[in-house]
Structure formats: C-alpha cells, structure tokens
C-alpha cells in the first residue's frame, strides 16, 4: 500500500475487491497519521465533488444570485465595506459580535471570520456572471477561507447558523423560514480593485 494507492481510493471508485484490500490494509495500519490523512483526502474529494455539482447547475445560478440580492433588498442580509466590520445585531444581543473582514495576503484574497469555534458558519461567493461557489468548512479562530477566482463583481456571503445546509438554496430557504428566535444572519461583502 502506498500513499498513491490511498489517494486513488479516496478519489475514484474502486471495484469491491480492490476496496476490500484497502479496508484490510487500513485495519492493520496503526500509523497515528493515517486517520488524519484519510479525513483530509476524503474531505478534499467531497469539496471537489461539491464544486463540480455547483458548476453543473450553472443555469440556475442567475436566479440564485438574484435571490441573494433580494435578501439585501428585504433587509435579511446587510452590505458591509471591506475591512473590519460588525455583524448585524440579530445574531445575538448578549454575545460578543462576530467580526468579518477581507484581506489580501500572500497573493490571495481571504475572508476571515472571528466567531466562537462552535458557531456554524457557511461562506458562499457569487458573481454578477451568475457564478456561485460554496467554500469548504473551516475551523479554528478566526476561521479563514481563500477566495477562488470568480467572474465580474464577486460578492462574499457569510451566513451564520447555517453550517448544516449544504447548498446556497438551502440557506435561502432557511432564511425565508426563520423566526425572531433563530440565530441565522447573513452579511454580504464585495471586494474591489481598490482593496489592499
């Protein structure tokens, strides 16, 4: 068994017999690093599959982006300027407000969210060309995501209380059904060429 074989198992469908060989090898391997490696490989695969699924539904994105925009118009989400910014008060009046900001570092644009580690946060990026991508889950404090290349006028959407919803449409649905007691909030950020 080699790392390449393991990566192949994590990335493609093997036959049942081949898969059994991999599972047998796993049972016998007690390297403490293996579970972490496997988790990482499987997560990477899921992220790639999720991105591919998003791209396949490209025709639905213009409508989805319009619905995101409607969130802003309805006041269900709020615009912020690049930089350090407070979250809407609807998150939790008592708790310290989460902080969200964008920054350029090491040649990449990053979104960072300073929020309690057990809080659920989902980040999407949309653009005016109808593109939309859900960024993978992140942990730590602050949480950080590297933003992918997008089309015209990309917008970052940070949704809190929505980590269990796998798709942007689900977030929208959750927001539509929310009550005053819900802990769901969305903020939109847009970065420009002026940002440094």
């Amino acid at each position, binding site marked *: 068994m080699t790392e390449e074989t393991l990566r192949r198992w994590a990335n493609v469908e093997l036959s049942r017999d081949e898969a059994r060989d991999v599972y*047998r090898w796993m049972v016998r391997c*007690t390297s403490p690093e293996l579970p972490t490696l496997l988790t990482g490989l499987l997560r990477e695969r899921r992220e790639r599959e999720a991105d591919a699924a998003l791209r396949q539904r490209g025709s639905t994105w213009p409508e989805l982006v319009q619905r995101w925009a409607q969130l802003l118009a309805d006041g269900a989400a709020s615009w912020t300027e690049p930089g350090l910014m407070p979250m809407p008060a609807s998150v939790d009046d008592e708790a310290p407000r989460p902080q969200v900001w964008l920054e350029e570092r090491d040649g990449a644009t990053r979104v960072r969210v300073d929020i309690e580690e057990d809080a659920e946060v989902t980040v999407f990026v949309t653009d005016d060309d109808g593109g939309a991508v859900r960024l993978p889950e992140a942990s730590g404090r602050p949480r950080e995501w590297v933003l992918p290349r997008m089309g015209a006028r990309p917008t970052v959407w940070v949704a809190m209380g929505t980590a269990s919803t796998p798709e942007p449409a689900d977030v929208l649905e959750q927001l539509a059904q929310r009550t005053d007691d819900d802990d769901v909030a969305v903020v939109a950020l847009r970065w420009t060429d002026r940002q440094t």
Partner: protein
Amino acid sequence: MNAPAIPESEEEALLDELADALQEVVESSCAEMAPLWLAGTRLARRDLTRTVPDLGIELSEACRRLSRGTQNRYRALACWRHALVWKGVLAEVDPDFAQATRALYFSPYPEGTPPYAWSQRVSDAPNAAEFPSAQTLKDWAKEGCWSSVEALRQRCREHPEKTVRDEVELRLLKVSCRDTLSDVLKLDAHKNWSKL
C-alpha cells in the same frame, strides 16, 4: 508492537470481518467513518499490525485545518457503528427501535454534511416519513442506541479471553462501548430515566 501475535489463519479471518464491517459502515453513512474508526481503535488494533509501514507523508493543509475536537467527538460514534455492524447487534434490538437507529445512524449522508447529520436534523433523515413523527423517530433511535450499547456491554462481559484473537476482539468491543452514551449519543439523561 509489530510482532505477529495471532495465528495467521485467525488473523486473516478477523481482518476480513473487520474490513467488511468498516466498508459497510462507510457505505451506510459516510466515508469519514473510516478515519474516525481507525483513530478510535488504533491502540486496540496494535496486535494486528504485521509490518504495515508508515506512509511518511506530510499532511496537507486540508488535514491541518480539521478540528481535532470534532474528530474526537465523532470517533466513539464510528466505533459504536462499526461494532454494531461487525457483531450484528441491531438484530437483537426491538424492531421499531432498530429501524429508527438505522434511519438516523445508518443512512448515507448527503455530500458536504458532517457525520452527525441525521441525528441533528431528524426530520430530514431519508426514512423519517416511515415514523409517526420526527420526535418519535428521535425517541426510538435513542432507545435503539441504548439497547445496542447494552448489548455490546453484555458481549464484553461474556466474551472469552482464551486466545489472542479473543483478546483483540474484546479490546475492540470495549473501545466501541466506551464513552458512547455520554459523549456521543448524549444519553445520560435517557439512561437515568430508563433506570427509574
């Protein structure tokens, strides 16, 4: 601990059982069950390691991003699932409770959701409509979990320790029971209630 400890024929049979159960758990929930089970049973499997080399790899950024606390929390759940499949424990549980347990813990999760998805969103479980209500499904699943862990504990109490294979099996079963009720299935209150 790489010295052979189990006669080869017994080791092969045990490897097949464990590997098949692991594959079934992955297929009936999510791929992340494999690394979680491996991490949870590493010490208990140490006598099964016949010259399986370390991979000697540098972990990816995706691996380093993973929350260690979250992984720890899910490990016991993966071990419990594996033991149930390995020993066919659910067949001994009340059919309604077993069906509910299968619905929440042995139904494949959608892409991008954590291993705990259905027990967190009971009404979204694939077979939820087969139960009188979401609350009933949740209650019955708890009963099923409780009964299954009790059955596992009973097996531990009655398990022979005549051979090395017996010892390995017992260690794995004990790992599968340990901390499951309080840390993963959150059945402390339920446990106390059941004893009244």
